[in-house]
């Protein structure tokens, strides 16, 4: 059992989410920085589906009532477990503290956090206020049971810095045109790609609102269509909203381009004030970018 001494700013239990239920209005959810989360499980020897803590801006303080192997990845924190599996002794505490650079930090415990599975996942769903064990972010006094979802031995070495994603902007993310690119004038995507967009304070797991100085994109509402994580919606006033893992499943603003799945990990670490540049690629180039990360995870293949 792990006891939460302090909940931190916004700490939730996340795994790989529940994709496939969008037809019920349920977002896929799961760890916002899928790559850091995947490595955290890898380091402690967990199965890829094991649940962990996703910490935001300021992490929690946890007390362990049993010896446990822990790894911390993602946004940088001052911890011996930073990108490395370490043993936390029974009775001792782990304080995650301030996260910087980056915004989200993942705390994986060998065996996984064993809260009940709801609709196929242990992830907290904010829109539906269910899952994540408590149907809310963690708070002081919560007790987290530990499961047995390990698949292999822990990784002894720290995760190599060469195989981590950047934690600071300016961010360059790959996008694929569409699906509603036709709703815009011919050069709209080139103009978007030439614009240094700025992350506003309005960011959460549902999406990020960006400012695009000097860029004026014309758009109007369209008939409600399904949405995906990474969709760059253009509002009638010309604002940009990039949907993230807890996104609304349908929407009525046209989507000029969609951030590729791999790069959602980058946007998960973006902070207000950061610069984001979109680079339009074709599906083949997007596949190569995704493969680079999977090769880091499985160097043998």
């Amino acid at each position, binding site marked *: 059992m792990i006891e939460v001494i302090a909940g931190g700013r916004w700490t939730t239990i996340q795994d790989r989410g529940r994709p496939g239920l969008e037809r019920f209005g349920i977002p896929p959810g799961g760890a916002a920085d899928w790559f850091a989360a995947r490595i955290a499980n890898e380091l402690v020897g967990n199965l890829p589906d094991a649940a962990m803590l996703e910490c935001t801006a300021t992490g929690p303080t946890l007390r362990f009532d049993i010896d446990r192997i822990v790894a911390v990845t993602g946004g940088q924190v001052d911890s011996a477990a930073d990108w490395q599996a370490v043993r936390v002794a029974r009775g001792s505490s782990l304080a995650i503290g301030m996260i910087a650079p980056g915004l989200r930090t993942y705390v994986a415990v060998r065996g996984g956090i064993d809260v009940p599975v709801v609709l196929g996942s242990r992830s907290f769903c904010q829109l539906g206020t*269910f899952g994540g064990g408590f149907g809310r972010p963690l708070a002081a006094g919560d007790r987290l049971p530990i499961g047995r979802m390990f698949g292999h031995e822990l990784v002894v070495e720290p995760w190599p810095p060469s195989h981590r994603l950047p934690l600071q902007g300016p961010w360059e993310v790959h996008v694929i045109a569409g699906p509603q690119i036709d709703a815009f004038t011919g050069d709209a995507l080139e103009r978007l790609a030439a614009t240094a967009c700025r992350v506003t304070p309005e960011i959460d797991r549902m999406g990020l609102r960006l400012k695009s100085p000097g860029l004026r994109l014309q758009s109007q509402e369209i*008939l409600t269509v399904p949405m*995906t994580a990474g969709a760059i919606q253009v509002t009638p006033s010309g604002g940009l909203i990039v949907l993230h893992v807890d996104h609304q499943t349908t929407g009525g603003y046209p989507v000029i381009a969609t951030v590729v799945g791999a790069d959602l990990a980058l946007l998960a670490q973006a902070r207000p004030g950061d610069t984001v540049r979109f680079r339009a690629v074709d599906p083949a180039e997007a*596949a190569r970018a995704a493969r680079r990360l999977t090769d880091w995870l499985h160097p043998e293949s």
Partner: protein
Amino acid sequence: MPPYTTSRASRVDEMWRIAPAGDRALLITIGTVIDPALLGQVLALDRALQDQRPRGLLSTVPAYASLLCRFDPGVTDVARLADAVRQFKGAEEVSIPSTPVVEIPTRYDGPDLPEVALKTLLTPAGLIELHAGREYLVYCVGFAPGFTYCGALPDEIAVPRLASPRLRVPAGSIGIAGRQTGIYAVESPGGWNLIGRTALRLFDPSADPSTRFKPGDRLRFVPIP
């Protein structure tokens, strides 16, 4: 003849547009208006894809006149899946299976009812009569868990969305926007004009299915005091 049958399938088929929605999904857009015939096509294509699942297809999301297909990029790609989808063009049954009309007990006391009545030059009673006086088709479950999009509203009570959305709309709220009416299944932000509410629970994460409605279902609002 079953309701919502269309004989315009071949004509509407020509309007299909298939576009990538990122590197793991493609969107098939069948039309751009609220039309039961278009929903019929979407649901028929959805059923056909579930029955004869093309390689790499993971799941689908239907909405009004479009269908999203999520795929495994390790198994297929946009071009191959688009080819597979095109083979269903024109081959599908387009009538919406008939289901019983579900009654929604509705207390018409929404905060925007007086304002909507003013805008539409109706008395509140007249507005309620128009809203409750017809059967609606469920066009989509989306936005937030269980949110139920229905149509089409009579033109007389079609009003634009609120200028600025509410941050919190309580679960069970019934709203209208344009020619749509909808039921908020969970508390969420929302920009629709709220005219009533129901105690009916439309989303329950512990139930199977988790939502009360699916596209193609039919419902009617029944005023209660």
